[in-house]
């Protein structure tokens, strides 16, 4: 079976700093892959390299066996790569509904969609992530966590094959985190592969099929969650004593 994503020896530098250093891994179809690591380890950079908003200094990303080298972000989106932004990027002047409708119009599922139909899909998506009450609000009137959910809804509306989530649970309380976990599981059950970055260990532990740890841009562990979380290096670099 071709993996949904294959990351091959990817490196990215920022003026003297190596943010991602020779990282390789696979994301299998219908897999939920958790990515953790200390702050500044290169997790977000990794997502940007996959979604095409940053270009790798070296290395390659393959989507369903096909190299994405040089492909602009919008084409990757249409192929089926959806992402959220850790530092949220809503369309501030548009309504919450229209924010999501953009995804339905232009994403993997879009292409020839009509505006009215896209809005309909968007509404459904918003209900799904629990923002149903806010459809008519302007996006910049949402509080922080509301925007996180909006990010998720926008990405989902694109009907992606691979979903890249960058800290969509940050700022939610435990009850709400459980809701989002349920949402992501349901998404996976529709056949989507998911990559989740999260610092909420409890969530990542229960959600991930597999866990990958980055440190100083390098992959330091990759495997089944309980094992990885028990790894001494991971504990020292990342978890600390408290290990929730």
């Amino acid at each position, binding site marked *: 079976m071709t993996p949904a994503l294959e990351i091959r020896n990817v490196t990215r530098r920022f003026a003297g700093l190596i943010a991602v250093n020779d990282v390789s891994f696979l994301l299998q179809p219908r897999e939920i892959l958790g990515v953790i690591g200390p702050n500044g380890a290169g997790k977000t950079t990794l997502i940007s390299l996959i979604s095409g908003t940053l270009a790798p200094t070296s290395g390659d990303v393959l989507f369903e066996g096909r190299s994405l080298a040089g492909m602009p972000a919008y*084409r990757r989106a249409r192929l089926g790569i959806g992402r959220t932004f850790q530092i949220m990027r809503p369309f501030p002047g548009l309504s919450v509904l229209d924010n999501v409708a953009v995804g339905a119009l232009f994403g993997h599922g879009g292409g020839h969609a009509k505006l009215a139909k896209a809005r309909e899909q968007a509404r459904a998506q918003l209900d799904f992530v629990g923002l149903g009450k806010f459809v008519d609000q302007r996006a910049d009137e949402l509080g922080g966590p509301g925007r996180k959910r909006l990010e998720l809804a926008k990405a989902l509306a694109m009907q992606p094959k691979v979903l890249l989530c960058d800290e969509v649970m940050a700022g939610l309380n435990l009850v709400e985190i459980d809701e989002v976990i349920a949402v992501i599981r349901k998404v996976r059950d529709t056949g989507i592969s998911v990559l989740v970055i999260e610092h909420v260990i409890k969530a990542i532990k229960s959600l991930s099929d597999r866990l990958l740890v980055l440190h100083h841009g390098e992959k330091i562990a990759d495997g089944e969650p309980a094992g990885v979380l028990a790894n001494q290096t991971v504990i020292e670099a990342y978890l600390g004593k408290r290990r929730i």
Partner: protein
Amino acid sequence: MKTLRIALVVAALVVLAAVPWFGSDVLIQFGINALLLAVLAQGWNIIGGYTGYASFGNSVFYGLGSYGVGIAMAQWHLPFGVGLAFGVALAVTFAVLLGIPVLRLRGHYFAIATLALAQVMIAIVSNVTLAGQNIGLVLPPLNNDPLFYELSLGLLVLATLTVFWLTRSRFGFGLIAVRENEEGAEVMGVNTTLYKTMAFALSGVFCSLAGGIHAYWVTFIDPESAFDISLNVKMIIMAVFGGPGTILGPVVGALSLSAISEFLSSEITSLASLFFGIVVVAAVVLMPRGLADMLRRFRKTGWRYFAENIRTHRL
């Protein structure tokens, strides 16, 4: 409500179209000027209002349109229509060739790069013999102001219908997404480069047509007046005055500002520019979201609208 608005627009259109039958020559001339400015404001609205790129290079399109007509008619003795087509071709070529690199710039940098383009065009054209260098071109005169008037009005209607279509179409939705957050739009599948370039070109088509009509009407063009930066400033001001990113805002803004300016320069002739400046300053302070927003909300809030505006926008 909605039918009422449509009826109002249609009625206004009928009155406007009938002006040559009852208006004086001065009114018709004023009309041609004001309508062409409205076309420019509406053209700018596509790239500036909907796509969020503050173009200062639209006067380049206007100038290319003028020179398209000028060169075709004065140098090659071709008919007006061919000149217009030539001008549009020049404008679209320019939009595509220069749009792609320049539209990579954001915000102020884009504004200034396009401003510089207008300067470069003046400088280049003043050295091109075919375009009459800095001396300019004199076109064969056609004394038919009603025709020019109806042409301008038709162009304005076309431009406005295009903008109306934008607001209902996938393309327009993509442009708005680019305006609101370009990187966000890109990762959601909007081909931002293509969309921006198309918006720039579309905006250029209308501006160049306006320039072409104007050139034939005044029968004389030179680089300074064809690529006049202050014309670009004017279109922005008119669009912003009316309400950028709305369908009728730029039109209303252009027509009303033209009317104010014309009234001032014929009634209090030597104080005109002073008053015009004061009107602009006062308008920005009192209604920073444009006429369209004021008309929409004034009914509800009344005079409080202005005080409210100052309160929400001041430091």
